[in-house]
């Protein structure tokens, strides 16, 4: 009998559940008769995300002490489990949002790819060496490239997919090159071994580190690596945008935190500054560019760049409070992102046209629920009370203060002040502007209600508001997760 290494199936369960769902959906898109293909594949993807979430919760519960698995290629710890949980939640909400899209062709492939992207992210956040990091990154990226270009009848969607593919591939190449340099300098690929190798201020290592940060910056859409974000977010199918803005950000930021804290403690004095600078540039670019946008998806894309900046402040703080802040922030942020893109999707389906600030006019009165929800999400992005956005910013600023970086607080405050203008611009469009002369919906009459999308929006509102009132349980979870990193 051939000896095999012991495999920790539980740690792999979230990934496997999503992979299974992806495969089943793919088979379903061939074997299941066309008229129930959509129901079947959507249900399988949804079930996959839910199962992955449940497994992630179990892993979280049972991994008080983190440990490395399978030749130390990935880690089973609470940080990865929490990130997987958030990704799974985002994925499940995305399935709900996607349902009403009325995709005619490739519907099975769509859900299969969504589950595959989710599986890649769930795997990626647990990576603990440079190979699995790259593997996970490419895994979910390739799925996302295709998802972006899924609406083959729309030119913007193809453009979005192509643009993401080219820029994303470039980002991955930079990351890979960086990994090679780090390996060259230390002879190691495991994060903790790189730290243990103690290469100090070796030029090769530092160049590699810089390239790794840049490569991850592409995925987190932090400025100046954000150029693809507005175009891709605008062109991709809105439900895919929703998924990317929430889940990709979770994956990229959590892994950035893990890589830097575990792998490069000796270079701390360098990368904290680098991350802080990237954070400030993201805040500046995201907020200033968002001011002049008329297309709501583009506006939200720039807003996501600025939020990457906020979350990178927490990473730059490089303390336990910062880890807590990041993990807390991701929860309401994910909900607000998905929720706001879901509202945009609803409007888009109604109008059969891109949503701009003009044709958002009057939505608040026409659709009281969606309008109020969008209002809540905007308040959350602004960091106003009654939403977790306030607490998130509060924690981020606290982490920056504890690290002694008061100027990051100042930058965050200024950025928030600027962001008010465009977030309130959306609220103004919803409630204050009169409904513009709208093109009547193609179908005529009022469009059908989409209960699944409404459920997703409702759940997002619930998380956004609930995370304000129930901070203690969430922060306990975030603290447990952050404790698995050696700050």
């Amino acid at each position, binding site marked *: 009998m051939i000896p095999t290494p012991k495999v920790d199936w539980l740690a792999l369960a979230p990934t496997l559940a999503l992979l299974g769902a992806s495969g089943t959906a793919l088979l379903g898109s061939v074997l299941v008769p066309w008229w129930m293909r959509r129901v079947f594949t959507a249900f399988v993807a949804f079930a996959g995300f839910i199962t992955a979430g449940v497994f992630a919760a179990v892993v979280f519960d049972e991994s008080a002490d983190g440990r490395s698995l399978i030749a130390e290629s990935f880690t089973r710890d609470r940080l990865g489990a929490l990130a997987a949980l958030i990704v799974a939640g985002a994925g499940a909400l995305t399935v709900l949002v996607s349902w009403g899209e009325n995709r005619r062709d490739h519907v099975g492939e769509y859900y299969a790819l969504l589950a595959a992207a989710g599986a890649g992210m769930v795997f990626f956040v647990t990576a603990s060496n440079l190979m699995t990091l790259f593997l996970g990154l490419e895994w979910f990226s390739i799925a996302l490239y295709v998802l972006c270009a899924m609406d083959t009848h729309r030119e913007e969607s193809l453009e979005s997919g192509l643009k993401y593919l080219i820029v994303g591939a470039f980002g991955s190449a930079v990351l890979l090159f960086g990994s090679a340099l780090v390996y060259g300098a230390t002879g190691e690929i495991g994060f903790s071994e790189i730290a243990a190798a103690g290469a100090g201020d070796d030029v090769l290592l530092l160049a590699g580190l810089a390239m790794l940060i840049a490569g991850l910056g592409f995925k987190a859409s932090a400025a100046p690596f954000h150029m693809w974000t507005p175009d891709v977010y605008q062109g991709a199918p809105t439900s895919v945008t929703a998924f990317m803005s929430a889940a990709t950000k979770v994956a990229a930021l959590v892994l950035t935190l893990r890589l830097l804290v575990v792998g490069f403690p000796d270079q701390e004095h360098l990368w904290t500054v680098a991350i802080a600078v990237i954070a400030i540039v993201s805040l500046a670019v995201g907020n200033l560019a968002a001011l002049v946008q008329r297309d709501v998806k583009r506006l939200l894309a720039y807003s996501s760049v600025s939020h990457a900046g906020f979350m990178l402040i927490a990473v730059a703080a490089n303390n336990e409070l910062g880890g807590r802040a990041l993990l807390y922030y991701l929860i309401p942020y994910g909900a607000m992102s998905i929720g706001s893109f879901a509202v945009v999707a609803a409007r888009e389906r109604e109008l059969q046209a891109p949503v701009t600030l003009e044709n958002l006019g009057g939505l608040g009165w026409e659709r009281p629920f969606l309008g109020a929800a969008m209002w809540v999400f905007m308040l959350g992005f602004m960091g106003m009370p*009654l939403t977790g956005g*306030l607490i998130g910013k509060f924690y981020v600023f606290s982490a920056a203060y504890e690290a002694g970086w008061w100027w990051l607080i100042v930058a965050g*405050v200024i950025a928030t002040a600027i962001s008010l*203008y465009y977030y*309130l611009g959306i609220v103004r469009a919803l409630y204050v502007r009169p409904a513009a002369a709208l093109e009547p919906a193609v179908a005529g009459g009022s469009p059908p209600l989409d209960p699944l999308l409404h459920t997703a929006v409702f759940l997002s509102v619930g998380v956004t508001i609930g995370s304000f009132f129930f901070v203690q349980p969430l*922060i306990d979870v975030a603290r447990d997760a952050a404790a698995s990193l050696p700050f």
Partner: protein
Amino acid sequence: MTTALIILPLAAALVVWLLPLPGRAVGSLALLAALAEVALWAVAVGGFDFERGLQLQDRQSWFSDLGVSYHVGFYGFSLFLAGLTVVVCTIAIAYAVWAGGDRGRAYHGLLLFLMGAIVGVFTAQDLLVFYAFFEAMLIPIYVLIGVWGGPRRLRATATFVIYTMAGSLLMLASIVVFGLSQDTFSLVDSGVSSNDWVFLGFLVAFAVKAPIFPFHGWLVDAYRESPPEVAAILSGVVSKAAVYGLLRIVIAKFPEPVEQYQAAIIAFATVGLIYASVLAFRAPDIRSVTAYSSMAQMGLIVIGLFSLNELGISGAIVQSVAHGLVSAILFLLAGMVEARTGTSAFVALGGMARGRPVLATLLMTTGIIALAVPGSVAFAGEFLILAGIYGVGWGWAAVGAAAIVLAAMYMLRLISAVLHTPRGIDALEDTPDVRRYELAILVPLVALLLVLSAWPASISERAFPLIADGQETEAAP
């Protein structure tokens, strides 16, 4: 008890938003909830012992790792400010019922939400709770002005929100620094700080809210473009959030910087007082006069607060309540005049006293009280403030007294321009007098002013804060 005072209007707001009731019923429901809130406040007063400090506390840990808890309670002075809030907001809702207007459910819900948020501000004993309520006030105000406001409402809301939020974000930074350096965000448990920057962050936030010169850029647009009842709440009550913040946070937590900057703050407040009084004298309509007079009065109140003695601070509280009532009445009267004539500009009004005795009486009474004739509650407040500031320097008191003369000038100008000068084009012969329902709205406020005029000591003897932070207070129930 305190929590109930906050929750009741918020819950009522939710009910109003969610229940699909017809217009009339919504108004009645909102009014009923507001009256219940007044009753609840009266019960709170009944159970309050003015000889002691913080009372009626509710405390619940919110998140413990940074030491933040939901902690609310009343001091004597905050009880009066909360009383002002519930009364003025109730009257505002009554006015909104009278004025009708579209989208009643949203409107009344927002007014109730605003009421709950303001009461929350006046009771907050934790910095983050304070910040949450302080910002929560802004959410309904933005929509109330933006949707139901006058023709230039977009500009008004944008300026208002950008000014106030810039101030409050500075405050958020200050809160983070203060709270983390104290290891707690509780206002009761934390000690004092001498950090100038943190102090300035708080000061600017409240200076914008009050507003103190030179942070008043948002004032006139916001007060002129709001619906009258919202303007009444804004100038009468929301500006008092600054009073609470200055007293509870700035003066209580930063004794050293306060002493250091005392002269500068008083100087700015005095400049604002004189400047706004002069502007009020030149302003072209009832609303602008009231708006600028509001700014002038806030200057006076800040002078009282920063005299840093019992006389001045008690005077500031008396004056806060008096001014809250006065400016609420004036804005509502302006709204009633506008509803009749379509304008509140002086050139188009005038001669309205003849044939409209009730309007004349109401405006006259309020105006006379506002210009602080001896025997009125405003006189009591201003006298205390001047007495307090006299202890700091007689020069300030002299300038303050001069400003009171200016107040008489602009108030008399307002009265005569509306009531007595030759009739303008919009003040028609048959423009009706104040009707019974409107009278029912205004009389409680005027009566309250008269009662307080007769007995200002009801507030001034009970208002002094007795803040004893960092020491043991009675255990929260």
